[in-house]
């Protein structure tokens, strides 16, 4: 097994081009589990830990850009948490302190599990995934990036460099149900983002379909009921109907972690609660 430790994105991209099929490694918190279970036997590994630019983020009034190698621990508190409270909440639900110190959005996107906790936030925020290859940079909206269970539209010589997010103005939050009070894989999760600028309320659902689901029909319905360019009304009836419509867009299944019925119920409950929280 060969291991490369590039220090710049250019080096990393060049190495990836020279070693088709090489395994990119950031926090390793997904990859090492795969290796441990013998599902993955990497021949060549490109470790991204030393690529410092991947571990940086920038926040301007126009754009928030988060490097693919920023660990969750740095999203939980500080400027990123202030700018993106939903991302902070999602980061806090990931694993244990050790996992949050190592795990990254780049890895979450690379794996693209429907239960990945960073992904509903990226979906609700209409984030753009920036892919770097010898051909340059390609920005892919999140909804086009994730295409199935653990499948994405990254081509093999592309490196996930960062995600770009347009700042929003309004409440945003993330809530996740698991059968344990910490360190648990999501059974159902909801990210809700209210943005006064675009007069929109956006909702994305985790672990209830093959991809992260944006509840676009429910969002459109809500737009006919409330004026999202200002504070949302604390209207219980609206919240209930909105939640019902959001849950109808989920596509959950039965498995050993939970049942489809419970997952849909959880989505409905979390959506109603997040909507009402947003009005407080």
């Amino acid at each position: 097994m060969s291991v490369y430790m590039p220090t710049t994105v250019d080096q990393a991209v060049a190495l990836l081009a020279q070693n088709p099929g090489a395994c990119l490694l950031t926090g390793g918190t997904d990859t090492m589990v795969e290796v441990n279970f013998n599902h993955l036997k990497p021949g060549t590994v490109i470790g991204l830990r030393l690529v410092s630019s991947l571990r940086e983020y920038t926040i301007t009034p126009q754009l928030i850009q988060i490097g693919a190698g920023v660990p969750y621990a740095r999203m939980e508190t500080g400027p990123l948490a202030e700018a993106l409270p939903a991302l902070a909440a999602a980061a806090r639900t990931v694993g244990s302190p050790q996992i949050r110190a190592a795990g990254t959005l780049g890895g979450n996107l690379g794996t693209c599990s429907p239960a990945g906790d960073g992904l509903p936030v990226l979906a609700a925020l209409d984030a753009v995934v920036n892919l770097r290859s010898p051909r340059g940079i390609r920005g892919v909206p999140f909804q086009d990036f994730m295409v199935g269970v653990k499948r994405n539209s990254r081509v093999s010589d592309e490196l996930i460099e960062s995600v770009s997010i347009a700042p929003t103005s309004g409440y945003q939050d993330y809530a996740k149900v698991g059968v344990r009070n910490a360190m648990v894989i999501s059974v159902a999760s909801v990210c809700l983002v209210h943005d006064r600028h675009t007069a929109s309320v956006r909702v994305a659902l985790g672990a209830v379909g093959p991809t992260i689901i944006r509840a676009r029909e429910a969002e459109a319905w809500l737009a006919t009921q409330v004026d999202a360019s200002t504070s949302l009304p604390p209207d219980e009836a609206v919240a209930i109907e909105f939640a019902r419509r959001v849950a109808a867009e989920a596509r959950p299944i039965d498995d050993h972690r939970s049942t489809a019925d419970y997952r849909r119920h959880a989505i409905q409950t979390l959506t109603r609660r997040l909507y009402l929280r947003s009005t407080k």
Partner: protein
Amino acid sequence: MKNSSTTTRSQSREVLGTSALRPDGVAKTQGDFAFSSDFQAENMLWGATLRSPHPHARIVSIDPTDAWRIPGVETIIFADDVPGQATYGLIASDQPVFAQNVVRYMGEPIAAVAADHPETCRRALAAIKIVYEELPVLFDMDLAIDPSTPPIHPDGNVFRHQRIISGDPDIVGDVIVEGTYDIGMQDQAFLGLEAALAYPDPGGAGVELVVATQWLHEDRKQIADCLGMAPEKVRLVLGGVGGAFGAREDISLQVHTCLLALRTGRPVKVQYSREESFFGHVHRHPGRIHLRHHADRNGKLLKVEGWMKLDGGAYASTSSAVLLNGITHLQGPYACDNSRLEAWATRTNNPPCGAMRGFGVVQACFAHEGQMDKLAVALGLSPVEVRLRNAMKTGDKLFTGQVVDSVAPVARCIRETDAIPLPAEPAYGTGSLELPGGSGRTSDPSHIRRGIGWGVSIKNLMYSEGFDDSAEARCTLADGVATLKFATAEVGQGFVVLAQQIARTILGVDTVVLDAIDTQIGSAGSTSASRQTWMSGGAVDGACRLVRERLFEQVAHVHNLNPLQLAVEGTDIVDTLGPLRVPVSEASKGLRIEETFLHRHRPTEELDENGQGNCHVAFAFVAHRAVVDVDTELGLVKVVQIATAQDVGQVLNPLTLLGQIEGGIAQGLGLAVMEEIVVDRGVVKNPSFTDYLLPTALDAPDVVAIPIEEYEPLAPLGAKGVGEPPCISVTPAIVAAIRNATGRDITRTPVRPQDICLPT
């Protein structure tokens, strides 16, 4: 622990009654302790096991040709390569070392390989070609009991059928309550995975095995039988054990490792992964229990009737003993004369089940405590009152006819638990990590309902039904230093510190050396059944007393005194009738006194066909009160506080006692709200810690514990076993608290979110 008089380390010498620190504590906390997986040998090979992917299949053919061709593969062994007995088992020898023609559960071993590297082993296993013909999977207990179902094993589909009939089984109460209860399959989930290292003797004349186990001598017997060797040719040494909880009572990798070493003439190490561990050891029996309780108008229990079914899975393990424990504890810690009970332990193609902390009593308690709450409601009594009115006392007779002559402070356990202050009302903000849902931040305080529930239990101590599980220990005193030798498996419970405390107390020495724990002395019995403090503690105590007698004789001889007037006071020998005072270190200078003691508990009997007989040795009792917060809409639970008062006899080490209480409560909490091996038609769905959920720090409740200290005259040190009771009635207490918070009649454990919040 609230009872501060027993927690303070008031004495400077670490004798009995103090929170003496464990000799292995520093090494364990600093990561220096060698667990069995840490052992290495020069020229060592690695071993690995090939397991069935099917729960029930005929093995049509096995072709290892490609595996033999892989460089580095030293040997591959199958059923035909087992030189001795082809099967093993703790009670019935029905489990094949390697499956021959048929596999009866998912994960059953078929072959083992030894090679130069774990990766070579893995490749070799993948290269062995096996053709299976899948057979119908027997996964249902009722079908297993049905005599028209074809047997999946020559010994049949029922491991044991037992009934108990006592008093007037036809009596009818004024108040009758009825319920059916389901218990899921729990895993012991010890952290130190199975690991062993075998060294073959020259010429293959014998073998030494370093292994993490609960019972060295029983392992040795079964290994020797399978190897076709005399037991003396098989020497076992205890490797560092990282938890056991019953899962190391059965043979797992022992025979395979020895066979590979003898075959290759080289040391061989086998070590399971977490996934393999789920298939490599037995689990707690899942079960279904139906009970009908009769009481008079005053709430006095008149009769318990019903049935219990426990699924033992593919092989016998300890199923028959677990069933005995289960049915004899369906009574709970309550006085009652009349019963009509029936129980079955079934054989199916589910994973084999056997010993786990609580051993059949966990299942029984979940049912009888659910019933006591139903009685309370039917009678208009509080859960505390209905239990107090029926609390068992010393001298009461069990359904089996056995008289409880142990100390039995059941009412006191309940009262003292009840007197523990309740936790403050919830005072947290939205999204607090302390709310149900924890870090998922699902709940706001307005969604939470608080509930309180009770559980009280009785647990037998030691082995039952005529089994003589004796324990041996040796004490050597020389130059003021005591050396202890025993085969007691230290699995984390702290016997090593208890043994030192006993020797310090009896002999007045400060330095107590512990010899290697191995088979170079007689059996200590298993580290299970809450028995080692009583049994091995009794053996160490006995050996130390014999040594002390001989020391007194020496001193008495020198000083021309009667040895009977000598006593140990601190670290001195004193004449109780005169001025003589000699330090033990001085009195034992130049001497070497060695004594061995065999401790036995009193004999017990088997049950007759009506379930009558003095089958148990002694009993311990405990009460638990659970306070939970429930998000009733999402079905999420946070256990806020567990209050407990436990009947412990004499407290020998408050710190290790608290360790057992807190750990047991965490394990019982796991069974209440999250721990379950999900099995679908014999197929295990969650063999990893990703999906088999154990409680985290955020799930652990506040524990307020009070030891009920009443000296137990039956016990050598006045102390009862304390290992199992903490995990038994805490599960029903938590589930009762969830019922209390939600108003739902929840009848299965673990309680899943959908059981709380979706229509049934």
